């Protein structure tokens, strides 16, 4: 009987190609929308989480002025000098490496190639606290730092875009009027959680940067790595207390500097990504519901349309049960086909999408199962109840139905 019903179902489905494909389409859209959105959202969250792990030891950044928003600081406050860096290193015991950071965007020129990038003047501590490693060459030596030699360490993107060659050690690049010798190549770190290319950098000794490029002895910010044995909060308090003292702020004054915790920012960002994923999932769920309503409609219409058929079957000896089985099997076959096509489609699109967006492909089997169950459930329920109503009609009334 079940085999008969299955045969009958697949014949009915082929006989009504348009109706069948519309029903399946509803399920396909619903299932694939949910899976694609959740998979991409999960990928984004995974990418951010991986980036946080990539930040290295916990890094604090001190900037002059009050923080006005994420990553920004209002101007006007007294800038830092090399003396602040030296004193912080000596006086604050909860921090390890302290590095001055002065950055500016400018063009780097090699031969006839030209690229806008960020040039940073700093010391070797910068590499340690920021978790940078060398791919080849070396960092600065004492002599180069003290004398402000025209040497630089470059990122992977700079090598690729400006030089192209694999070995760049000993090559030169020009920044404004300064010709700089490349002494080191940094290992690639990829994009930052904020979406910037961290490999698009040129790093030089801070003295070189101040004397030959910026022309001032200001330091934009100070980067400090917190000792493993100390909590980030404790380090922040220590730095804050010392800086207030050094900048002679009265107790009633607000800080005229700010301390930024990179890890905190990154985790805020990953929280945002998760929220975004939830939002996408909600939108996808709406499309699943809309798809469900579509299925419902078509099922209702098709049963109404087929009431006379049900009457004929009842008159020649079909039981209520036979008619129900037929409609149920039809609904199950349609829903299953739609679900399978939807899942396959979602797998292909989400993996292509993840590749295009540079995200890892993180498939959540629970979501796949949920989407499948929901749409199949809708198909079956709304195929079943109208069919039951029709199958309970008096055969005479069902036959007269037109």
């Amino acid at each position, binding site marked *: *009987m079940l085999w008969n019903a299955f045969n009958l179902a697949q014949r009915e489905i082929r006989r009504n190609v348009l109706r069948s494909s519309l029903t399946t389409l509803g399920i396909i859209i619903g299932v694939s929308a949910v899976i694609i959105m959740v998979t991409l959202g999960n990928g984004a969250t995974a990418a951010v989480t991986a980036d946080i792990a990539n930040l290295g030891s916990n890094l604090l950044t001190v900037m002059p002025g009050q923080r006005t928003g994420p990553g920004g600081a209002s101007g006007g406050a007294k800038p830092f000098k090399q003396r602040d860096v030296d004193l912080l290193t000596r006086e604050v015991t909860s921090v390890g490496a302290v590095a001055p950071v002065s950055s500016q965007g400018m063009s780097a020129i090699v031969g006839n190639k030209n690229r806008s990038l960020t040039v940073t003047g700093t010391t070797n501590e910068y590499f340690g606290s920021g978790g940078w490693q060398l791919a080849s060459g070396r960092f600065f030596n004492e002599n180069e730092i003290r004398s402000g030699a025209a040497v630089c360490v470059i990122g992977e993107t700079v090598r690729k875009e400006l030089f192209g060659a694999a070995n760049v050690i000993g090559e030169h690049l020009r920044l404004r009027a300064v010709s700089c010798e490349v002494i080191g190549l940094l290992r690639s770190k990829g994009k930052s959680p904020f979406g910037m290319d961290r490999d698009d950098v040129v790093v030089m000794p801070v003295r070189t940067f101040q004397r030959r490029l910026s022309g001032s002895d200001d330091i934009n910010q100070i980067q400090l790595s917190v000792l493993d044995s100390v909590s980030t909060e404790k380090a922040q308090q220590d730095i804050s207390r010392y800086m207030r003292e050094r900048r002679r702020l009265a107790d009633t004054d607000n800080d005229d500097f700010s301390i930024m915790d990179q890890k905190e920012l990154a985790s805020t960002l990953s929280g945002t990504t998760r929220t975004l994923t939830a939002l996408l999932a909600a939108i996808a769920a709406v499309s699943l519901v809309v798809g469900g309503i579509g299925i419902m409609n078509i099922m209702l219409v098709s049963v109404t349309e087929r009431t006379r058929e049900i*009457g*004929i*079957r009842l*008159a020649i000896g079909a*039981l*209520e049960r036979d008619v129900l089985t037929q409609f149920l099997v039809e609904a199950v076959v349609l829903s299953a086909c739609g679900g399978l096509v939807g899942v396959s489609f979602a797998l292909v699109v989400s993996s292509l999408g993840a590749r295009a967006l540079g995200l890892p492909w993180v498939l959540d089997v629970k979501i796949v199962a949920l989407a499948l169950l929901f749409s199949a459930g809708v198909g079956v329920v709304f195929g079943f109840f109208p069919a039951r109503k029709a199958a309970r009609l008096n055969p005479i009334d069902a036959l007269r139905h037109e």
Partner: protein
Amino acid sequence: MIDSALIAFDNVRKVYGTGQAQVEALAGINLQVHEGEFVAVMGPSGSGKSTAMNIFGCLDVPTSGAYRFRGVDVGALDRHQRALLRRFYLGFVFQGFNLLNRTSALENVELPLMYRGTPRAERHARARTALDSVGLLGWEHHTPNELSGGQAQRVAIARAIVAEPSVLFADEPTGNLDTARSQEIMELLVRFNRERGITIVMVTHEPDMAAYASRTIKFRDGHVESDERTH
């Protein structure tokens, strides 16, 4: 006498609606049909002949009185049991053919056998034989939409007799057909009645068609007006 009757109405009443709108379609009818008869049921519309037909066919139940099919009180059966009765003992031919329109003639004829659980190969063979007996061999794979009215009604007759029912109920089987086609259909029915001993109960309002039957029952206002043997 009662025991030998295939179909027996014992003071059957059928009332539709309630209160003021109540209509008495059958007002206490007694009649019997015996095995092998070909009965024509006639009467103006509203006379109760269609209601009687629905009760004959186990598609409806009397309000009061008893309808016995082979001695079994149909009124005491539930939907399920009545469906089984139709499945194993009854065949139907309707005025509007009532075939599945997008399904081939062969599959339409196979349908009653399918519900009986007949194996596929046997189903095919019997359906082809049935189509052959109504002169439609070669048309198995046409759908009712591709057939003429006369051909469609012959498919319906093949469907009704394929499972070898005890009784064939025909409700205005020639109502949608021209005279020549109607005669063909009636000759088929007469042949099945004579050759295979299938009892036939046919509703019609055309005396020409009733003339093919061996007995004519006339209804008027819910009563049997006359009941006479013609052959």
